[in-house]
Every structure is written in structure tokens, then in C-alpha cells.
């Protein structure tokens, strides 16, 4: 009984993964043929990028600050105080910057995408789009997908910068670490490759958030409960996917950088 239910769930999950892949392919084809509107794309960049700034900046600043404090407490025991900001720099660039940005955007934007598109589906607006000879993928998915791919790396850069500045502020003003060595060590140990890895991750996570949010909205069950469930699932699935993908991306890109 249990194995039957488990196998059904695995089959359903794989089928869903297949549907999301097909949606991605359809969106890519639509993008290449230039069917999306620039006006919609700019609005989505504004919605995903500009309007998410306050949330991600607060997250980035306080993460950088707490990371600096915690690192200092450990490093101080072995007289490595001035390496504090280097840890913050590397962590923010390659791991915390992209992951935290993506998780915050998944909560804010992924949920909004699923709710908006889900409501459109429930109120026949998606059918109305199709009846007006407009493919919902061109009109709804492509602008959101491209905007998320563009906005996530930009937001991540902001988070990395504010995180490092927050860490610097705490280290210098609250923990009395010598600023010159602190900064020099950060520059010495934080490599360009760390930033590149972070930006590649952010680009990928942007796609994950938009695809899952749009897919959940377009396939939500009819009724208010269906929209609510789609919204929750969009956030949960996107967050889990980001965290799991982050492990594999770190592993693969770390190996690649090591080989160069």
C-alpha cells in the first residue's frame, strides 16, 4: 500500500518535472522567435528587480553583519581577526548572496506569479487570452522568465555588496578589527571566480523561480483553494529546488574552477 502510494507520488513528481521542462522549451522557442513584448518585459524587470530591492538588501546586510560577528568570535580565539571579512566576502559571493536573494525573491515574486496567473486561470482570463489568439506562454511566461533571469544576478550583486559592507561595518566599528588588513585580506581571498559562480547561480535560480511560479499558476486547480495551494507550492518547490541545485552547482563549478 505504502509502496504503491510512494510510486504514484514519484510518478506524479516526474511528470510534473517533465511538464516544467516542456514549458521551459516552449518559452525558449517563443523567446527566440521574438514573440514577447518589450513593454511587458520591462514591467516585470521593475516588479521582480526594483520592487524586491528593499527585502533583499535588508536580508543581505544583516546576513553579512551576523556572519562577520560569528566568524570573529571563532577566529579571535586563534588570533585570525583580520581574516573575518575574507570569510564574509567568499561566502557572500559564492553561496549566501545568490541563495538568500533567490529564497527571498521566491517568497515574494514566485508566490505572486503563481497567485496572479492562478487567479487568471480560475477567472477564465487565460482562456480569454487564448481566445484572443494569444499564447499564454508568449504573454505571461516569457516576460517573467527573462525578467527573473536579468533581475536575480543584479539583485545578487547588490546583496553581496551590502553584505560585505555590513560585515565591514560590524568588524571595524563594533569588533575593533584593524580595517586595512581586514580589507586587504578580503580582497586577497575573495576571487573573481567566486563572484562569477555566484552570478551564474543567480541566473539559474531566476529561471527556477519564474518557471515554477508560472507553471504552478497555469496548472492550479480551480477555486480559491487551488490558487492558495499553487502559491504555497510555488514557494516551497522553488526554495527546495534552489537549495538542492545549490549543492550540485557548488560541487560542479568548484571542480571546474579547480581544474582551470
Amino acid at each position, binding site marked *: 500500500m505504502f509502496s504503491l502510494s510512494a510510486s504514484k507520488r514519484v510518478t506524479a513528481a516526474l511528470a510534473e518535472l517533465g511538464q516544467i521542462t516542456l514549458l521551459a522549451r516552449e518559452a525558449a522557442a517563443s523567446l527566440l522567435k521574438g514573440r514577447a513584448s518589450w513593454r511587458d518585459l520591462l514591467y516585470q524587470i521593475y516588479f521582480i528587480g526594483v520592487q524586491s530591492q528593499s527585502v533583499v538588501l535588508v536580508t543581505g546586510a544583516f546576513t553579512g553583519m551576523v556572519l562577520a560577528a560569528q566568524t570573529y568570535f571563532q577566529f579571535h580565539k586563534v588570533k585570525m581577526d583580520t581574516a573575518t571579512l575574507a570569510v564574509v566576502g567568499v561566502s557572500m559571493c559564492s553561496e549566501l548572496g545568490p541563495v538568500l536573494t533567490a529564497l527571498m525573491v521566491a517568497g515574494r515574486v514566485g508566490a505572486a506569479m503563481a497567485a496572479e496567473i492562478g487567479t*487568471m486561470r480560475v*477567472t*477564465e*482570463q487565460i*482562456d*480569454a487570452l*487564448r*481566445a*484572443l*489568439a*494569444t*499564447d499564454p506562454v508568449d504573454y505571461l511566461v516569457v516576460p517573467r522568465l527573462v525578467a527573473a533571469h536579468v533581475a536575480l544576478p543584479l539583485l545578487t550583486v547588490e546583496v553581496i555588496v551590502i553584505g560585505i559592507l555590513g560585515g565591514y561595518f560590524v568588524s571595524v566599528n563594533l569588533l575593533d578589527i584593524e580595517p586595512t588588513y581586514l580589507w586587504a585580506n578580503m580582497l586577497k581571498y575573495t576571487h573573481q571566480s567566486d563572484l562569477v559562480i555566484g552570478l551564474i547561480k543567480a541566473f539559474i535560480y531566476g529561471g527556477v523561480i519564474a518557471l515554477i511560479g508560472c507553471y504552478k499558476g497555469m496548472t492550479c486547480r480551480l477555486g480559491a483553494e487551488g490558487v492558495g495551494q499553487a502559491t504555497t507550492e510555488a514557494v516551497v518547490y522553488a526554495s527546495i529546488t534552489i537549495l538542492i541545485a545549490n549543492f550540485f552547482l557548488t560541487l560542479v563549478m568548484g571542480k571546474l574552477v579547480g581544474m582551470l
Partner: protein
Amino acid sequence: MIEVRDLTKSFGAQLVLDSVGFKIENGESVAIIGRSGSGKSVLLKHLIGLLQPDTGEVLIDGENIVPMNERQLLHVRRKFGMLFQSAALFDSMTVAKNVAFGLRRHEHLTEAEIGRRVAGTLEMVDLPGTEDKQPAELSGGMRKRVGLARAIIYEPQIVLYDEPTTGLDPIVSDSIDQLILRVRDRLKVTTVVVTHDMRTARRIGQRVLMLHDKKIYASGTADEIFASQDPVVRQFIDGIADPKENLP
């Protein structure tokens, strides 16, 4: 011309339409009647490819649209305008943007030309000067009118109406009926109306198809159907109409 052949559709284990078939000639206006849940709206959505049948064919001007993918269907749908039961206005857009949607997507017109066409179409549905209103500010009847304006602005060949008068008071329903007739006569469109409002069916349907028990149960001119002595048809017609009201 619209032709449906042996169309069968089920949702899960529930069979909704069973070998349904009929033809609608160009310029004809047809009312499809039937009880709530009899599959009228499902049938209508098959005509424009919004639903795919399990088996059967839907031919639009001789072209079977069933095997078409979504992208191919978009071209066929340009022949159609559709008014949805809930009007399905895009609630993030003003009335003008809703009405202009099809024009902006498919025709390369200047803003001035789009504005002129929108104003003209809103005038036709008796809603002049409402361009800047939001859908949330509109009453049920006004929403239907805007939905109709959006459906007809690019002058389609076929207009589908899904329960156009459901949820409206009799006076507004009457004005919507008149509007449907006006659109039919001015634009010379093929009209397909799904309704369980007998007055609408009688006024608009040159021909009436009755859907019952998953099939087209009865078909004929409005007069023939309304004069029918078949017990199922009679029960449906008499069951909905108020006995005190003299139907025209």
C-alpha cells in the same frame, strides 16, 4: 462554416458529450440550450479549440482543428471572438486596454487609430466614454458589454457567447440580447450562443440545438423547438420559464 462530427468528451470517468454532431452555416445564428451542467459551455469551448475532444472532429471552414497544436490554433482563433460567462476581463487593465488587446497583439496600428477603433467599438456596445475605467468599477452588464467589445473589435467571422445573460436582471438581459442581434446584423457574423435563458434562445437563435443526456437531443428553428410536444423539450422549456410570464 462550423461542423462538429462525432465529438466525445469526458473528464476523468465522467462522460460529458457523446458523439455530438451538427453544422452551422456562415452567417447563421444558433442557440445551444440545455440544463446547467449538460456540457453546453464544454461544447462551445471545443469550437474554438480551448478544449480537446477525446474523439471526433471540429471543422472550421473545412479545416479540422482537433489535431492542431496551440500555435496552429492561434491562427484559427483569429476568426473567432468569444464572450465568456464571467466576461473574463483582464482585471489589471483599463477598459480601453482590454478592448484594444487583440488589436495591439495582432495589428500594427498607431495609438490614434487604436484609440479611434476602441471608441467606436465602445460606442457600438453602448458604453461610450468608459475607456479609463477599471473592470472592478463596472456592473455585470457593463462587464459583458466590454467583453463583447473586446471580442468584436478585430471584426471576427464567428462570435461565440457563453451564457451572455446569466446573472443579469431581465432588463439588462434584454439589452444584451439586442446588442447580440445588432452585432450579428452589422458585422454579418456567425453567432453561436450557449444559454439556458429561453428568451435569449428564442430571440437570437434562428436555429436552436438542445443538448440533453450528452447528445444533441433536438434541433430545429426556434418556433419548432418552442412548439415541440416532446416531453423532454417541453419539460426543459416549461421548467425554466415562469408560467405567468408570456414569452414573446
